[in-house]
């Protein structure tokens, strides 16, 4: 089944912990993204990687560190979790060279920081 997948689907953790969210796409796309959706459903881009190279890095605390071991994977590591990090995190991918640039989204990871 071709898609963008994320693990875990739910993540509940204590403040101060370090956690990772994994993302994989088997669509053969060259670009992957991380978005954060807050409690008001506002969706904002955090990072993007093209062929394993960081190309978009929005104003995100440096506690957040994306890692792309290969084109098909983009993981998000978060250090010293804070209450404000609670959100749904979406991974997405696209083929930048193709028109008209549709992004395909994963199912989301709901992170709750207690």
């Amino acid at each position, binding site marked *: 089944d071709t898609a*963008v997948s994320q693990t875990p689907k739910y993540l509940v953790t204590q403040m101060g912990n370090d956690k990772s969210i994994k993302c994989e796409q088997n669509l053969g796309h060259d*670009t992957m993204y991380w978005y954060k959706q807050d409690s*008001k*459903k*506002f*969706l*904002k*881009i955090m990072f*993007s990687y*093209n062929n394993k190279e960081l*190309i*978009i890095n929005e104003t995100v605390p440096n506690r957040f560190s994306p890692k792309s071991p290969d084109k098909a994977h983009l993981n998000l590591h978060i250090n010293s979790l804070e209450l404000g990090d609670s959100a749904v995190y*979406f991974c*997405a991918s*696209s083929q*930048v060279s193709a*028109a*008209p*640039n*549709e*992004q*395909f*989204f*994963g*199912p*989301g990871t709901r992170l709750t920081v207690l």
Partner: protein
Amino acid sequence: AQRVTQPEKLLSVFKGAPVELKCNYSYSGSPELFWYVQYSRQRLQLLLRHISRESIKGFTADLNKGETSFHLKKPFAQEEDSAMYYCALDAGGYNKLIFGAGTRLAVHP
């Protein structure tokens, strides 16, 4: 500044009524605009894009550069249209999407 504005957080209509979800953008270049939809318990997915000039599930959207708008319209709403709708602007360079705050469409029987 690059910005997408969706002024309505919630739009509530009855089945069969016309629907218009508003979207305005601010962008200095030539915009590429999209509508994405998130149905309950499903992932965010592309609904339509202005460059294709297509109608998907009865929805259409026309880019109006003079008014910097890209409103989403459907003449007769259906209950299955109930979802969260996001207008998005491709801000150029590696498909960086800037999303509006989203509008929840609730279609009542």
